[in-house]
């Protein structure tokens, strides 16, 4: 028999970080704030908009054009060390006048801290924001989903395509508030499109290049694909 596998106790967080406890009696507004919020305000006075504590979590609003700089700082600085990106998502409010909010949930595993970073994207102009993929590789699919659902374009993302919906999906961005729950198209139109799609043509141009399969395709399909048309239409 060999030595048994010996588990070690969670020791990733540095010992000086305070022992975490289950939050109790959390206040709706106010309460202890994450010290990173103050440091962002000091370091990025141009980017900082406001900070608030809602139900125990600190939210920092920054200007959208400075998001990448702020997140780089939070990731790299020794006092911050936000090394873990929990989530990237967006919120659109029922009041359509309000801007769309981009939300990043960041965690500092060494300091056991949690920070919510927000940037407001005004309506009536293209929704664009810097991708944090160069900092966190985990942002890849999270940003693709956000693009898929809200139509927010992440500049600098290496492969911004739809992910949960198919690439030829034409109905728009489902999590936007102007998108009806049943979809934009009628059931008969959805059915017609599904039946009209060619189930064999489900490889992207990039994938077809792998096998040099492009040369083997029929002439008309090659012409369509070379013209920039997506497969399956």
């Amino acid at each position: 028999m060999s030595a048994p596998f010996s588990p070690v106790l969670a020791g990733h967080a540095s010992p000086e970080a305070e022992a975490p406890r289950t939050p109790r009696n959390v206040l709706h507004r106010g309460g202890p704030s994450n010290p990173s919020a103050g440091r962002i305000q000091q370091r990025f006075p141009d980017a900082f908009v406001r900070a608030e504590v809602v139900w125990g979590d600190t939210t920092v609003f920054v200007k959208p054009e400075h998001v990448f700089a702020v997140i780089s700082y939070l990731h790299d600085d020794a006092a911050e060390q936000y090394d873990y990106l929990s989530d990237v998502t967006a919120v659109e409010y029922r009041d359509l006048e309000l801007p769309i909010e981009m939300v990043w949930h960041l965690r500092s595993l060494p300091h056991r801290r949690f920070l919510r970073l927000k940037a407001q994207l005004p309506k009536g102009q293209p929704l664009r924001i810097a991708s944090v993929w160069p900092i966190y590789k985990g942002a890849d699919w999270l940003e693709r989903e956000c693009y898929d659902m809200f139509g927010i374009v992440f500049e600098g993302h290496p492969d911004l395509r739809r992910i949960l919906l198919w690439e030829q999906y034409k109905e728009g961005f489902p999590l936007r508030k102007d998108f009806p729950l049943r979809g934009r198209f009628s059931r008969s139109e959805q059915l017609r499109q599904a039946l009209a799609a060619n189930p064999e043509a489900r490889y992207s141009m990039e994938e077809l290049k792998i096998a040099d399969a492009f040369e083997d395709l029929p002439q008309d399909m090659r012409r369509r694909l070379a013209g920039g048309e997506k497969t399956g239409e």
Partner: protein
Amino acid sequence: MATKRTIEVALSTSGLDAEGRPQRVPLVVDGGGSVTTLEAPPALEPELEGEHMLLNLGPQHPATHGVLRLVLELDGETVVRCIPHVGYLHCGFEKIGEYRQYNQIIPWTDREDYLNSPGNNVAFALGAERLFGIDITPRCTVLRVIAMELSRIISHLVWLGTTCIDIGAFTPFLWAFQERERVYNLLEGWVGARLTTSLTRVGGMAADIPDGWMDGLNSFVKTFPKTIAEVDKMVTRNGIWVGRTIGIGAMSADEAVNYGLSGSMVRAAGVAYDVRKDFPYLEYETYDFEVPVGSAGDVYDRFLVRMEELRQSVRILEQASKRLPDGPVNVDDARVILPPKSKATSEMESMIHHFKQVMEGPRPPAGESYVAVESPKGEKGYYMVSDGTSKPVRWRIRPPSYVNLSAIPKMVEGHLLSDVIAINASIDIVMGEIDR
């Protein structure tokens, strides 16, 4: 002349490395059948001419654990590139959640990660209770811990069984599913449902445990470790198992954190990040349990970590069953809890209250909450934004296996096609959660 073949075999009895794990020892089998150990590293194979091949794996493939589709670029049998396609099960949970009251969303949480329904129910209820500013009762806290650990056991058992089948061991599958059946029987005794439990409500539970239920739990807790030990004996030092898993799909600690991996995936890489320890909920800080951490971050370490997590879950269940206090399960808060049925049918005020609760639903104040729990797959978070109405403006699921799966192109690169199956199994994906 007899042709020489070089194969890699892990010996289960000799050749342990410094960590005490069996090493992969290259062996040479010549045509005569004699086997010799090779001291020097095997010579590189001569470069073969040939085109890269496109291989489509899935979506209807049993080893993809659902409807995952991987488009693989192969050089011979080696994966050069992997392009995953997900979304075949997408049904817009997050959109539907914006049209449902908080308690009406709970059945939806059953159906995303359907191997972890009680855990999802608890996680959602915790998030909603944060929005309402409710602290649950001590009895409810312990009951929820029991529910979470039972669902962790279910999920890990399904993972264990299906992964064993993927790698070629059938017996552990039957053992694992037999034990899983016992947990489902317990859940059935508790709420009546087995798979889609809808166990919680905002502010409490759907039901208290029935009389004698704890005896069933205690007998499960007593006998279940025997099954883990049997699987351990059968699989952990098995030469085929070890050969198929050691050094496969390894992620370093820094990579794992940067890719946002969570749960057993990040712990196998040596990062002791467990939401129960680092950002506790349900008073997990008062339970005595340990977080297993691997070192190599490969498929084998993920297996070891999950096996140990099963044992630690049993430890937590033992402690929880001892400390279960008496008292009410639901909070005494008229904003979220329905009046008793007897009153609702006999008193006017209670009937109006009941009617308003059911038809209009509880209204949290405007605000937002992100509550993450340690699901069997990793960090599962529910982000809810309220504008003061009875339905959330935004209900976001942070799906751990979605983020874990996004690292699969990185993990399979340079491995053999058969290793893709092992790596995919080790991620422990549930497509219901990934596609939502």
